[in-house]
């Protein structure tokens, strides 16, 4: 089995979402593909059904460029994180249930962070939420089983879009302080080399999957023609961004 992986240049929200969508559409049969990326400028991504107007209730969000993800979960303030999208065929064992893919990618992240001398752990079922009362708007203020925390701070959260043929999981590894929490570079007191970090993360995921990791050198962007322009257009469409 093949695990394709790539580390892309920072892009804007619609471009990133389109690239993730096409990652799933171009999956090798039975395989896995993962894409790591950054954002051209500080941006906000909303979960598939989050209320657009509620971002006004959180200081500092209203002025940011916004894109809506097809995946669920809470809003993410991008710019000080490493974002990933992993696509898995539904026929793959990791595609069968929500938790299996979540645990596989997050389990590899825990090992990765331990290798950096951090003390991460996975949130367990039944743990009380870090922020009480109603569900927080921001992903990193939420807690759910399988989230990766260091101390009391969530450093990795993910959410999925489950299609008939493939599952796409979006996730964000917090590098530097954003809002209440600290990122891994804050804990380390230094920067990390992102391409190397991604390589090690991929190696851990590939090992867990029993897969052969290979660089994904296929072209993206305009080379994909109409499929690309249609996907970017969907994520630029205000009707999608403000759907709720």
């Amino acid at each position, binding site marked *: 089995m093949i695990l394709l992986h790539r580390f892309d240049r920072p892009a804007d929200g619609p471009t990133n979402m389109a690239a993730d969508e096409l990652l799933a559409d171009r999956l090798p049969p039975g395989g896995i593909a993962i894409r790591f990326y950054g954002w051209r400028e500080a941006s906000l991504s909303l979960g*598939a059904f989050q209320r657009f107007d509620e971002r006004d209730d959180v200081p500092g969000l209203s002025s940011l460029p916004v894109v809506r993800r097809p995946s669920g979960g809470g809003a993410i303030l991008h710019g000080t994180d490493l974002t990933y999208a992993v696509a898995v065929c539904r026929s793959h064992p990791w595609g069968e249930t929500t938790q299996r893919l979540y645990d596989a990618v997050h389990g590899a992240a825990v090992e990765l962070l331990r290798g950096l001398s951090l003390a991460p752990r996975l949130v367990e079922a039944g743990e009380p939420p870090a922020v009480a009362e109603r569900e927080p708007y921001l992903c990193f203020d939420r807690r759910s089983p399988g989230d990766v925390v260091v101390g009391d701070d969530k450093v990795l959260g993910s959410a999925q879009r489950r299609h008939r043929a493939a599952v796409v999981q979006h996730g964000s590894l917090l590098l530097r302080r954003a809002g209440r929490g600290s990122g891994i570079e804050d804990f380390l007191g230094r920067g990390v080399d992102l391409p190397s970090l991604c390589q090690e993360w991929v190696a851990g995921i590939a090992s867990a999957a029993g897969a052969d990791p290979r660089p994904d050198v296929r072209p993206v962007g305009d080379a994909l023609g109409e499929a690309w322009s249609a996907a970017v257009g969907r994520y630029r469409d205000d009707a999608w961004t403000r759907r709720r």
Partner: protein
Amino acid sequence: MAALKFAPSHEWIRVEESPAAGSVATIGISSYAVEALTDLVFMQLPQVGRRVKAGESFGEIESVKAVSDLYAPVGGEIVEVNAALPGTLDTLASDPYGKGWVAKLRIDDPKELDKLLDQAAYDASVGRK
């Protein structure tokens, strides 16, 4: 009551023949799928009057970690939706084949029902005896 049929994507369908309305099918989500989704938080129902093809996404459901598409088992026109369901998502787990129905659809081509699984075949496909 008519027997249930199932799509591999975990939607169930029950067809009621009505002289006035023709073949109208009730559609819902299998108990297996509901259990697998866990912790449901939001549901997007289709618009009444919308036409869908077999296999086309007609709604979405969100759990704590995932959004899943709902696929039409057969093609037709949405004639009614369970408007109370998004506010009572627990019903999907407590009564998935009754009060947890999602939508009713007037079927275009009853032959499409022949491509669906009966209860025994569906149960076998998800590892339930």
